[in-house]
């Protein structure tokens, strides 16, 4: 197992290297570079400009700049300095990361809680009325643009329905807490409802479909017939034997979907003013705050690689047939 993990880490290394070179190059393509703002400022003299250039190391060749940047990024935790907020980027990202992980973590749990029963039932009774309805709904769920779904939810549950237990709308249109109620768990859950629905609809559609087909494949296998033939109960055959095996490929699939899932954060967090990474990124992109953008993409990519690795290792524990070394 240790050899396997080491090997995977070694494989992840060139990918991360390639990505960092690519992103660094991309941001440096920007005309003016990090000094664009200062150059436009008439109060900054040419002498001051060249002094800044030397201080930031911009007078050195690009490869050296890259090495310095990546060294500071990885080993010193120096992710740059926000142009707009004049704060260290690392601080800003650590502040925002928990909100994103909370929203998407709970969204993920809700997804599994709905997608697994739906997928299993569809697989056990294929082409039944329930399955046909779910098939059509899942096409709808996969096709609905998440930003539009979010807007519709706000229209319906913020504008349309009143809260049956008190004043005001049924669900808030955005934010994480009501002002003055920071840290209140119930208030947080209340704010989570709409974003989580918006997040989960597409995922539920996608994963329940996938589970249905993977479960149907498994149910046709010989070992299921054997299990049935030796008189095991319906419950044991379907849940102990079939479901366990059908869930396995989903682990890999989920890890592969992560880039898209993280991408969805931008939409959800923008629509629901959720104070997470996506919202931070969007604000930074509007203000052309490149250090923030560069660091966010790097961190997201690192997280995706890490989760991919975790999924692969988890797969080894879940499926005893797989031996890594």
């Amino acid at each position, binding site marked *: 197992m240790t050899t396997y993990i080491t090997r995977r880490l070694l494989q992840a290394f060139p990918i991360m290297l390639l990505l960092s070179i690519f992103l660094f190059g991309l941001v440096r393509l920007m005309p003016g570079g990090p000094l664009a703002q200062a150059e436009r400022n008439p109060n900054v003299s040419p002498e001051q400009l060249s002094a800044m250039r030397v201080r930031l190391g911009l007078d050195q060749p690009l490869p050296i700049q890259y090495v310095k940047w990546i060294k500071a990024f990885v080993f010193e935790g120096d992710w740059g300095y926000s142009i707009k907020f004049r704060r260290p980027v690392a601080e800003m990202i650590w502040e925002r990361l928990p909100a994103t992980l909370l929203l998407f973590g709970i969204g993920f749990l809700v997804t599994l809680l709905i997608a697994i029963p739906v997928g299993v039932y569809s697989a056990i009774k294929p082409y039944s009325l329930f399955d046909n309805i779910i098939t059509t709904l899942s096409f709808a769920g996969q*096709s609905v643009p998440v930003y539009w779904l979010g807007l519709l939810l706000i229209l319906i549950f913020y504008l349309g329905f009143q809260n049956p237990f008190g004043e005001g709308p049924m669900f808030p249109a955005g934010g994480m807490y009501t002002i003055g109620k920071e840290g209140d768990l119930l208030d947080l859950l209340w704010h989570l409802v709409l974003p989580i629905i918006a997040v989960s609809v597409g995922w539920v559609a996608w994963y329940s479909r996938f589970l249905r087909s993977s479960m149907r494949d498994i149910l046709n296998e010989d070992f299921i017939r054997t299990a049935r033939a030796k008189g095991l109960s319906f419950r044991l055959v379907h849940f102990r034997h079939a479901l366990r095996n059908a869930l396995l490929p989903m682990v890999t699939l989920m890890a592969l979907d992560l880039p898209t899932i993280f991408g969805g954060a931008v939409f959800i967090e923008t629509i629901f003013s959720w104070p997470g990474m996506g919202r931070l990124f969007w604000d930074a992109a509007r203000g052309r705050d490149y250090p923030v953008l560069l660091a966010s993409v790097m961190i997201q990519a690192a997280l995706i690689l890490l989760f991919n690795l975790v999924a692969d290792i988890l797969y080894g524990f879940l499926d005893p047939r797989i031996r890594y070394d």
Partner: protein
Amino acid sequence: MVFSTLAFVMTEATLSIPEPIFSASARPESLSALIWRRFKRHRLALVSAILLGLMTVLVMSAPLSAYSATQLDSKDEFAKPSASHWFGTDELGRDVFTRILYGGQVSLAVGIFSTLISLTIGVIVGALSGYYGGWIDNVLMRITDTFLIMPVVFVLILFSALLRELPNFAEYRNSVWLVIIAISSFAWMWPARIARGLCLVLREREFVSASRALGASDARLIFQRILPNSLGPLLVSGTLQMAYAIITESGLSYLGFGVQPPTPSWGNILESAQVHVYRAPWLAVFPGLMIFITVIAINFVGDGLRDAFDPYVIHTEKS
């Protein structure tokens, strides 16, 4: 034909016997006819294909509208949907229906061109990778992996913001092509993976070996032997790419990094609607609905194509 004359003298009971698959008199069915026959059985896919056709005609007929997409009408702001303004008017008094038609031209064009470009890049990368293998495969697949772990929307925003700042690109700042380039640059990896897999399998098949033995060049083997036989999976992947491109274009425009106003697209109509959503909800409903209908139709067509090309799908089971 023989059977229809025979049936004339047959009894009720024998009529229910299914026709034999091979009939001596009939000419063998061509592949495209077979695919079309199988595609038609997927009713939702057929309806969706017709719907997409109608949608294209509707969108192309935008100039027939009595209203202009950009003309302001200060007397008629935020008009509710009515007989004269089917989808109402927006904050500047522009007819939303007309704007959605013009926006549809842009959104569909972005979808089609992004699909063509990303599919072409993907097929070339995948074919080279799968056909030659070795270090070429290794290098190309590491690059593909790198693109695959990028958080797509984040990189797209960064990329399209940067493209707009390039001095050589200044005159194309607001061009729709910029959006198409950005989307295709980060969408070729999925078709590349599929094309590579197909190439790996097909290059070992007998008909390819036979061609090779006859002295066919690599290019001939790839373009005339392997790729034509990969048509089905690549077409299905094309529909997925198209659905993805349309959703992504609208998403990017919605965030303000896609198609730039005054050129309308479904995404930026939705963006401008967002601000006024409390006052004029219909502004947000219709553009999104168009995206939704188009994407779901494309997905159904893709599903129909998948079934039509898959020799293992038994249609009797699926209504």
